[in-house]
């Protein structure tokens, strides 16, 4: 019963998922429910001259048809950005209105223009074909660099050159000087391509307005229902929070795309009041491609200077980051505070400067995508290190080793590492993970095999990546000063039932992470009771006190600590009750295995008896309140900083450009581990996601702003047969500033893997003269790069 922490307990939620008993939003059918279908723009940029809904309104089964004008007339505001980043000169970022249904203009293909509410889903879709929208088309611009150039289409009247804001971090003069003084400067210019999250469950929402209570319920596929409620109530709809309940039940994957507050959530909630019936919307897969927020989409130039010993002298990075057509909830913070701040990496670079230009384009809005900013930063650093190693004729592992920040545990003796870009790392042993990863693959032998293979005309490549990430973004006072329009703490209520069973209400939201298991392990371990006695409840604003939700690998490091704080309070109060029953002093009690015991005696009482006494307080400490339930809010002192070293081994078919990933080794340090199997699963999923970016994925927009690969027939996701068996290992450097010593594991794989794979391919093809490849490394691109290198 004790020592549940650290055990690979099988995921308790899997039974319900694998047997089809999960309960998702689309499974829900409410009495008298109607169906919504959204009419979306099929042009990228146009003035809406008129929307003719007459025929659709009279179609069979149609209850109502609404446009942006209807929502505007009802006082519905646009969707807000949850983070404000100001221009370098102090001006406020450009935040043009983002109406749920377009008003006046459309600015991307997929933007919602009208909604059909009908008796059945089929009738809603049929009627949508009768909506006539009169567009006056305007030029579009989908490319993040072209959008800022002279003559580019202007999306908004008051946003010159489509620039939402510009931003910088670090000491520019020092970075310039460091580059100027360097003996060698490595320069890379590349795109970090646009990705689509593609959660397996399409988004869905049901609005249900109860006129008698003037109360709204919204069921929605959200990673953070409380945040959605806050944004909807305070910014968009102007309705009081106590009249709104948001439920996010089982959710089938998010990867960032279910963080934002979406138009459809507002539409169904508002429309439900208008039609007086529940209104349900579920995305079709092709709608998901065109309406779920996308991720990444940077154009970057980066330079890294080295002295004659191979020590980094400076890093200078300039990035254009696409926002898409509007600012989504967390869009502004992704390329800034989650990207620029990570440019120190694990290296002791003495000077770092990052310059970011955030740009509107005629595309689906961009927001967080697994890693959010940190993969982009890591890609810059890790490509630079490998590229520099090749240029300098040094081994990439050794060049990294020369520049690694020395180990520190975050104690007073070895305090946190202050970076040149605003962060203080908590604890780290970067050489430790590098050594272990090199050992996992027998690096020296691998290099020898590579050499031998080249002799046979086979091109094997070995790619490294030593990454760091920042998880559990915090504390609230700091992120508030940086522009966050919300706090970034977490809350948990732990309710001990009279029978000694425990219900945990937590603001972290599970959509694949396995919280039902991990949190039950945590509480079971801390209370010394079986996991079966613990139920984890999340995703309902009426049940959970408050919650910031799940993203940025924060659930355990923030939510888990909030739970732990409540458990501590329960143990403290429980000790008072136990002491009373045992006729001892609480100070004289030990708590272990679900028992309070008087030290040095065999007098003890169990957790269940204490729980019953708390609710049936016949023989009870004087002055103590009955009941055994506590809520806690935990606002961390700092981010947590997991890190690791990943090594990819590839073989390239130079005739076809096909990259075969033959080995993948990951050594990660995520601090203490509650469930190694779940962490391994997160690493496997994350690595797969990152490999997808390196080799397969990428949204392609044409010059007219049309997404040309918006289906699973065209947009390639990684599959099992694209992947080797993953080799994983860990070192453990506990986080010094949370009681669990945990750091977070949900994104590490994504962050570490993308550059490792690309570095491996470049490493394979370096002797052929290939110096650069754009992601995804499709066979054609690789083949063409070999061809043009040959031509040189």
């Amino acid at each position, binding site marked *: 019963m004790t020592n549940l922490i650290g055990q690979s307990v099988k995921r308790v939620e899997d039974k319900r998922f694998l047997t089809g008993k999960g309960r998702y939003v689309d499974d829900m059918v409410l009495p008298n429910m109607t169906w919504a279908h959204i009419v979306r723009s099929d042009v990228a940029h146009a003035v809406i001259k008129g929307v003719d809904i007459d025929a659709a309104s009279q179609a069979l089964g149609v209850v109502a048809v609404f446009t942006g004008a209807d929502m505007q007339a009802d006082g519905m505001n646009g969707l807000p950005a949850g983070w404000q980043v100001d221009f370098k000169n102090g001006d406020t970022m450009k935040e043009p209105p983002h109406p749920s249904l377009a008003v006046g203009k459309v600015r991307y293909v997929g933007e919602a223009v009208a909604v059909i509410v009908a008796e059945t889903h089929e009738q809603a879709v049929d009627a949508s074909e009768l909506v006539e929208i009169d567009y006056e088309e305007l030029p579009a611009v989908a490319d993040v660099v072209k959008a800022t150039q002279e003559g580019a289409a202007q999306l908004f009247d008051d946003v010159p050159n489509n620039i939402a804001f510009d931003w910088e971090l670090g000491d520019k003069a020092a970075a310039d000087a460091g580059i100027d003084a360097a003996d060698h400067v490595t320069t890379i210019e590349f795109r970090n391509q646009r990705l689509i999250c593609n959660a397996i469950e399409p988004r869905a929402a049901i609005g249900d307005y109860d006129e008698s209570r003037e109360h709204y319920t919204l069921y929605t596929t959200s990673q953070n229902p409380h945040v959605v409620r806050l944004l909807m109530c305070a910014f968009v709809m102007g309705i009081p929070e106590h009249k709104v309940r948001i439920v996010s039940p089982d959710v089938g994957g998010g990867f960032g795309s279910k963080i934002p507050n979406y138009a459809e959530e507002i539409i169904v909630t508002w429309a439900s009041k208008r039609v007086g019936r529940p209104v349900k919307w579920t995305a079709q*897969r092709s709608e998901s491609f065109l309406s779920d927020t996308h991720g990444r989409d940077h154009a970057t130039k980066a330079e890294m200077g080295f002295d004659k010993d191979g020590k980094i002298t400076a890093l200078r990075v300039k990035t254009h980051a696409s926002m898409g057509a509007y600012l989504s909830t967390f869009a502004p913070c992704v390329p800034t505070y989650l990207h620029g701040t990570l440019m120190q990496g694990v290296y002791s670079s003495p000077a770092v400067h990052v310059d970011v230009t955030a740009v509107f384009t005629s595309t689906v809005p961009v927001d967080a995508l697994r890693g959010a900013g940190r993969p982009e930063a890591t890609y810059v650093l890790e490509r630079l290190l490998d590229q520099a190693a090749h240029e300098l004729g040094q081994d990439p592992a050794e060049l990294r080793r020369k520049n690694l920040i020395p180990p520190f545990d975050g104690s007073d003796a070895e305090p946190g590492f202050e970076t040149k870009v605003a962060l203080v790392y908590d604890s780290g042993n970067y050489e430790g993970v590098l050594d272990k990863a090199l050992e996992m693959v027998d690096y020296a032998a691998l290099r020898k095999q590579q050499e031998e293979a080249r002799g046979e005309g086979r091109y094997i490549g070995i790619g490294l990546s030593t990454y760091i990430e920042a998880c559990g973004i915090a504390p609230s006072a700091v992120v508030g000063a940086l522009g966050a329009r919300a706090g970034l703490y977490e809350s948990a209520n732990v309710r001990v039932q009279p029978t000694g069973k425990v219900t945990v209400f937590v603001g972290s939201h599970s959509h694949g992470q396995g919280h039902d298991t991990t949190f039950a392990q945590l509480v079971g371990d801390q209370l010394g009771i079986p996991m079966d006695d613990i139920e984890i409840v999340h995703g309902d604003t009426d049940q959970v006190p408050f919650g910031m939700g799940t993203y940025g690998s924060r659930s355990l490091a923030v939510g888990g600590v909030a739970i732990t704080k409540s458990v501590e309070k329960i143990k403290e109060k429980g000790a008072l009750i136990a002491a009373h029953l045992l006729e001892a002093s609480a100070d004289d009690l030990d708590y272990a295995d679900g028992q309070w015991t008087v030290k040095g005696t065999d007098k003890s009482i169990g957790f269940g008896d204490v729980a019953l006494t708390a609710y049936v307080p016949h023989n009870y400490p004087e002055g103590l309140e009955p009941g055994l339930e506590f809520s806690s809010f935990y606002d961390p002192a700092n981010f947590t900083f997991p890190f690791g070293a990943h090594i990819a081994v590839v073989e390239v078919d130079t005739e076809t450009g096909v990259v075969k990933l033959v080995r993948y080794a990951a050594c990660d340090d995520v601090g203490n581990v509650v469930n190694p199997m779940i962490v391994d699963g997160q690493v496997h999923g994350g690595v797969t996601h990152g490999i997808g970016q390196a080799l397969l994925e990428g949204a392609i927009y044409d010059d007219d702003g049309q997404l040309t690969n918006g289906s699973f027939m065209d947009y390639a996701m990684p599959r099992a047969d694209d992947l080797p068996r993953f080799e994983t290992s860990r070192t453990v450097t506990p986080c010094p500033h949370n009681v669990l010593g945990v750091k977070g594991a949900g994104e590490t794989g994504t962050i570490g893997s993308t550059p490792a794979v690309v570095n491996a391919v470049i490493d394979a093809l370096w002797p052929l003269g290939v110096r650069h490849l754009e992601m995804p490394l499709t*066979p054609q691109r690789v083949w063409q790069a070999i061809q043009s290198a040959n031509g040189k």
Partner: protein
Amino acid sequence: MIPSSFEYHRPTSLDEAVSLLQEYGDDASLIAGGHSLLPAMKLRLSAPEHLVDIARIDGLRQIRNDGDDVVIGAGATHHDVESSDLVVQGAPLLAQSASVIGDVQVRNAGTVGGSLAHADPAADYPAAVLASDGTVEVLGPNGTRSIAAADFFVELFATALEPGEIITAVRIPIASGTGTAYLKFPHPASRFAVCGCAAAVTVSGGKCDSARIAFNGIASAAFRDTGVESAVAGASLDEDSVRAAVAGAAAGQELLEDSFAGEDFRRQLARVYARRAVLAAAANA
């Protein structure tokens, strides 16, 4: 993913199906496995008012030996084709190409007749039927006729089928002593062929006697590459000789171009896959 409404017909004989097609003309579509038609309908790219389901017509799924030929009923599923001993022995290219179509679910439902009629240039059967020198048997308002594979695939999604005609079978001559291989470079998302090459070769004394080589995936319709066939005939069956022999693969053909694979890359794939397919075919001759 909701199609427009339609009327569903399930004729019990091919003659009945032909007369339904005559009755409804352009408003009708045949359906069997539905693996190309239904996705198009769900996306409302296709909205037939009448669906004529021929999947359960007696005998249409039969695979039989007919003298010197293997005759595969149009209603045979890809799984039927890949797992039939008659096909594996007598028409191995068909079995090989069927085995790499889609995934298990697709192969259990999709049919050979449906795939041929749809004439997706990236489908896997066309090159196999061409390199097997097969014929497509059809029934129409004017009775039956046979169309040589070489005449069947006309253009992107277009065949030599006349309005109202239904494919009833594909007939493949049994070529004993022939080695065959179908190799494809799949699109990473759809797993359709970006380049598929079917080769049927006869071998004597370490050299290729004769060869039939066909491609799908690279051009708007599948085609036999007679230029490469004659270059390969007589060539020694080693890597370098075959590489030289197939250097002109797809010469003179206008090739497809998209963001995943442009014309130059498809031509390179044609060369590589022709060589690999010829050598693989020779190895089992």
